[in-house]
């Protein structure tokens, strides 16, 4: 793949490009789903594709293809060059400077060959065990949306006309289960999952199954809550979405367009004093780790918020030039799209309190375990999402609540983070421990 990517770069330069950059992805996916003990589906396939970005002076164009024939690759080059002749002169467009290019040394532990070696029967068995554990855990677990084992292993390559050539491999394995609980006419589902670079790193399937069942069971008997302002505690799974919103707000593309409530706030207090947020693209075994970003800049560790103060935006070269800053090695692109910005491993630094201590600090409040919908406006910070969880009374979860909203403004919510849990766990590239926000509006009856 890397040789071919370099060949495509040469073809583009010969075709009239001032600069060219080619990304290639090759991978194999496997998934098996089971439901009520029976195999429901098996899927297995490999795929590969190239994406190309060319510059003619300060104009850029891009293209992609899954057709690796001679004509396919010629069309790839011709399309990108044709488009670059038609786009606007953009003084900030361009590849990274030669001295910015490179890969971080060392093994990031992103690939374990074993991911592909487990037999199909064993993969199916893992999903069956997880589902069985959920179904056996309580008579009120009456049904299941199923369980699945999925794995992926692949190679990413990048080559450009400024001498960069790099590649790395990545493997992931996951197991999830979605049981359905039913009692007195109310039906509730929930899920649990585990993710690792190889099947050996997965949590035991029985643990996932029981945990998922427990989550579904505790939702039975959910009621709506009264509309009022109360402290809101986010379980890590829900708290993670706050970090996802924060990422969008410190994404350099939104910042230079003034489309973020955090634009122009560098060096200012934007969060509670205990809040430190870090993006680390070099975390060994991290699901967001990589030796270099999608334009060939080494990834790194960036402090986004330190003790409540906004220290850095997350940037690629383009956004950095627009803002007069240095790239943070966060370039991210899909094959079919133009270059954007993505997180490495973005997390909220854990605090001193256990989740129980955080709940104990609340007399009357809402413990959010699930959020749905897209009600976050990053331009204004306005926040309003559907939520489900447990009502906290006298420091303890007391009854399940659903069909309510929680609302506030993200700028205020981050300033109002009062307590942070010690329970940080990565179940993806973005993670947060338990978080307590001083007050939000719960919308219900």
């Amino acid at each position: 793949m890397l040789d071919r990517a370099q060949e495509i770069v040469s073809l583009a330069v010969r075709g009239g490009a001032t600069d060219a950059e080619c990304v290639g992805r090759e991978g194999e996916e496997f998934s098996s789903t089971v439901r009520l003990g029976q195999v429901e589906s098996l899927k297995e396939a490999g795929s590969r594709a190239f994406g190309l970005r060319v510059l003619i002076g300060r104009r850029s164009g891009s293209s992609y293809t899954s057709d690796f024939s001679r004509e396919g690759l010629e069309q790839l080059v011709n399309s990108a060059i044709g488009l670059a002749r038609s786009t606007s002169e953009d003084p900030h467009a361009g590849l990274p400077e030669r001295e910015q290019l490179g890969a971080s040394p060392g093994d990031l532990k992103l690939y374990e060959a074993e991911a592909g070696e487990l037999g199909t029967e064993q993969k199916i068995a893992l999903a069956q065990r997880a589902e069985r554990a959920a179904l056996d855990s309580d008579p009120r677990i009456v049904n299941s949306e199923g369980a699945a084992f999925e794995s992926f292993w692949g190679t990413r390559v990048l080559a450009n006309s400024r001498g960069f050539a790099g590649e790395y491999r990545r493997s992931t394995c996951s197991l999830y289960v979605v049981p359905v609980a039913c009692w007195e006419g109310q039906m509730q589902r929930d899920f649990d999952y585990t993710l690792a670079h190889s099947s050996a790193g997965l949590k035991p399937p029985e643990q996932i199954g029981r945990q998922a069942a427990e989550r579904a069971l505790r939702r039975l008997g959910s009621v709506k809550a009264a509309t009022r302002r109360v402290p809101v505690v986010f379980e890590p799974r829900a708290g993670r979405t706050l970090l996802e919103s924060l990422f969008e707000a410190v994404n350099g593309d939104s910042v230079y367009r003034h489309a973020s409530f955090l634009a122009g706030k560098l060096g200012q207090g934007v969060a509670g004093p205990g809040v430190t947020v870090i993006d680390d693209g070099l975390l060994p075994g991290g699901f967001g780790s990589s030796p270099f970003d999608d334009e060939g800049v080494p990834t790194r560790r960036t402090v986004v918020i330190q003790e409540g103060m906004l220290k850095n935006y997350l940037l690629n070269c383009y956004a950095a030039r627009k803002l007069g800053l240095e790239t943070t090695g966060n370039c991210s692109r899909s094959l079919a799209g133009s270059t954007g910005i993505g997180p490495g491993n973005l997390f909220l630094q854990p605090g001193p309190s256990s989740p129980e201590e955080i709940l104990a600090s609340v007399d009357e409040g809402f413990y959010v375990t699930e959020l749905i919908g897209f009600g976050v406006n990053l331009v204004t910070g306005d926040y309003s999402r559907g939520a489900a969880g447990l009502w906290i009374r006298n420091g303890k979860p007391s009854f399940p609540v659903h069909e309510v909203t929680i609302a506030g403004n993200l700028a205020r919510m981050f300033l109002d983070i009062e307590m942070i849990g010690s329970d940080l766990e990565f179940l993806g590239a973005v993670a947060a421990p338990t978080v307590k926000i001083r007050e939000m509006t719960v919308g219900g009856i």
Partner: protein
Amino acid sequence: MFFASRHHFAPADLERYLAEALAQGADYADLYFEYTSSCSLSLDESMIKGATQGIAAGCGVRVLSGEKTGYAYTDELTPEKILRAAQVAARIAAGPSQISQVNVGGQTLAHNLYPVLHPAADADLGQKLELLNRADRAARSFDRRIFQVRAGYADELRHVLVATSDGRVAEDFQPLIRLSVMALARQGANVQRGADGGGGRLSLEFFQAVRAPEDFAREAARQAIVQLEAADAPAGEMTVVLGPGWPGILLHEAVGHGLEADFNRKKVSAFSGLLGRQVASRLCTVIDDGSLPDRRGSLNVDDEGSPTSRTVLIENGILKGYLQDRLSCRILGTAPTGNGRRQSYQHMPLPRMTNTFLLAGQDDPQDIIRSVPRGLYCANFGGGQVDITSGKFVFSASESYLIEDGKLTRPVRNATLIGNGPDVMTKITMVGHDLKLDQGIGTCGKEGQSVPVGVGIPTIKVEKLTVGGVESS
């Protein structure tokens, strides 16, 4: 005969691939060939910054054995690779071959819903770029307070060929275009956004002759300006009036997903077992129709080769039917409705919506607003989501107004609305005569697969819905 000429397929080749897929004893197999070319352009800060063209091509092989599915695909359309994918997919079954011979028949296209003579994919790039520049100028000249404009254009031309082991072959060309505009307005430190867009299975002429880029641009700018004046949204239960068109996303989330056959045969939907029962007020008749001309959610045939059709989901409040794919039809013994869809050759088909809408009623939209002493009027929405099992759904208002004494008064800021699917439709007490379909920008996600869809609704009154503002009075 795109694939026949490009890849030199003969019916005998398709029969050979299908026979291989059935060789391990499966009872059904199908092939989905796809060749999609696409183009997307983006304007930002009055510059064309992004321009991408691409090709995605491949073949997916699906094998059914009882209720089990085997799936494999290849992005190389060579006989060896397709046969290899067929062998991998075939492993789901175990036993001797049941079907000795496959004979694929001729073309079966029930209708031609998008007879586009000159697909946008072949049009001159300059014409497409001009649409974006026009949108930029129109949004900026709408009001001095508009300071940022982004506009995006995308077209796609998808060639598909479906061949099934029961002898059906369907080939289709599926054009799709879309134009979208986002504007930011600023007044002091107050920054607000507005967005609009449209498209369908149409040629570029649509944006020249029917809906000009200026229309979308001015609408996006207008929304951003309105939001500058918006007050905090209320919180709690209240009467909500939904305006016509895109607010039809209510149906998509509240009932559409819950009526997809896979969730119902597994009995994990809040609507499971309610067929023939009253699930909405008598004023409600909900339709899913994949056979409307030119619409974004329409298809001549679905992605399993079944013709698309008009399916009555709810009639005068009574639950009448589900959205079916082939697998569900086989298990439930029902007839296909043409709702088996997939994102691409890399994905298994699932029952999905096409264009989902509520039929018009008798009421004057103005009377509906006048009937509300205090409530919320929602003119526009962003996205929505649903928990199929509990039935809880949300959708987020992007332009709404307080109703006070039967009149629209102040605009209020973005708020999410939450309700319960099987319950909310019973609270619809007035239905306007102004049914409107959306402008053609909707995309629906399910199990990681995105497909284009449409929605529609007349003005309706929902007696009680929870509004998720910050103002708890």
